[in-house]
Structure formats: C-alpha cells, structure tokens
C-alpha cells in the first residue's frame, strides 16, 4: 500500500501532468483514509492559485 511520501509525490505531479489510471486509483485509496494527504492535495491546488495571484494580473507583454 502507498505511504504518505509516495502519495504526496503523486499529488505534486498531478499539478504538472495527468496521472495514470493506476496511479489515480491507489492515490484515491490512500487519500480516502488519510486526512493529512487529503489536505496536502488541496493545498497543492491552493499553492498553485496563490502563485498565480502573486504574478497577476497578467497584462499583455508590452512589445
């Protein structure tokens, strides 16, 4: 069974690529039982949103 370290690695990669079906399934199994990793997954998305806000409002390049 997947541990938290492996689960968080996949949760990070989910920000960068589409996970494979098998990865997704074992991740779901893990997060259904692990609140810490569930929170971690949400926070990966929140981090991404915050990073985006940090450099908003994306004006068009001034050429």
């Amino acid at each position: 069974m997947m541990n938290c370290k492996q689960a968080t690695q996949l949760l990070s990669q989910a920000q960068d690529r589409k996970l494979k079906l098998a990865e997704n399934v074992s991740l779901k199994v893990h997060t259904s039982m692990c609140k810490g990793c569930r929170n971690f997954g949400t926070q990966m998305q929140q981090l991404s949103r915050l990073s985006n806000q940090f450099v908003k409002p994306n004006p068009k390049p001034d050429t």
Partner: protein
Amino acid sequence: MTTLNTNTLSGLDWNQDEAFMGELRQQMLKFAQLQLQDSYLAEDAVQEAFIGALKNQQSFARKAAFKTWVFGILKHKIVDIIRSSQRLVSNGASHSDNDEPPPEAWDQQFDDRGYWHLSERPTAWKLPEEIAANDQFWLVFETCLGALPANYSRAYMMREFIGLSTTEICQQLDTNENSLNVLLYRARLKLRNCLQNNWFDQGA
C-alpha cells in the same frame, strides 16, 4: 521616452515612497536573476517592466496592486527572453547546480515508513478571498519562497509563476522529467511547510 519617475502614478502618496520602490526593484531583480541567470538581462527585464507599468498610467490604490502589476509584466518579459534564447539558463549555470539534490531536511516531515509525523501532518488552510489583499500574507509567502534553495525555486517559479510546461523546463534546466519532478516536489513540500508554520498555524 518614459522615465522611471514615480510621479507618473498620479495622485497617490505611496508612490513617493522611495524605500518601497527600491525594495520592489530588488525583489524583481532577484526574481529575474534567478530565472535568467544573467544580471544584465535581469536588469533590462526589470527596467522594461517598470517602464511598461508606468506607461500604462493606471492608478493603483494600493502598493500591493502596483506590485502584482509590475511583476505580471516582468513575468511576460522573462517568458519572452527564456523562449527566445535556447538553453539560456543552463549555459550560465554550473552543472552540479542541476543535478538531483541530495536528500535532506524535507524528508523529516515523514517517519521511517514514509508516513507523516503527527506534528507535521497537514491541517486544512483557511484561505479567504481577502488574502489576495493582505500584504502581510504576501510578505510571508515571499519569505518562504526566498528560503528555498535556488534550484528549487527556479524550477518552481518556471512552473507555477511563468507557467512553462515540464518539457520546456527540462530543456531550460538541462535536466530530465524525473529530476524535475523531484525538484518541484521538494519545492512544494518546503513551501507548504513554511506557510503552514509561519502563517496558518499562527492563526492569522
């Protein structure tokens, strides 16, 4: 020719704040330099971003709004420069810089079996909309970013700030997908932990 005269931002008192402008410039330089690995290019990009921002003559009620605006312009300058110059980043960087980093403290959030230490287990974040306008929060955010090892934050910013694909970042950093995954993972793990400890656990 537009000059870097902060008076162009009409009617606001903070635009006279040279300390703020100076500090902002330093932050932008640091950001650009980390991405471009070239102080001249970084200097140019920051200069152009400032000019671009001032040319638009927008009025910014808050410092934070102006800051995100210029950073947004800077981001686009950097993307242009990175995309137009093949492998610019890896040219200047020493090779060891790009090797997979050795395991270290980030690991200590997990026990020997790879499960969260109880004290390190992530608790849900309260993240209201208003946080975008909270200068204090962004200060913590920046500090946490600044605390990352340079190669972590470079990879992280390319991905999450500039929005390059992992393929593009691998090309720029002259590295492979697996190493990049490790870099991004550790950057996120550290950044998350830093924000947890210094903001969310503070009940702010």
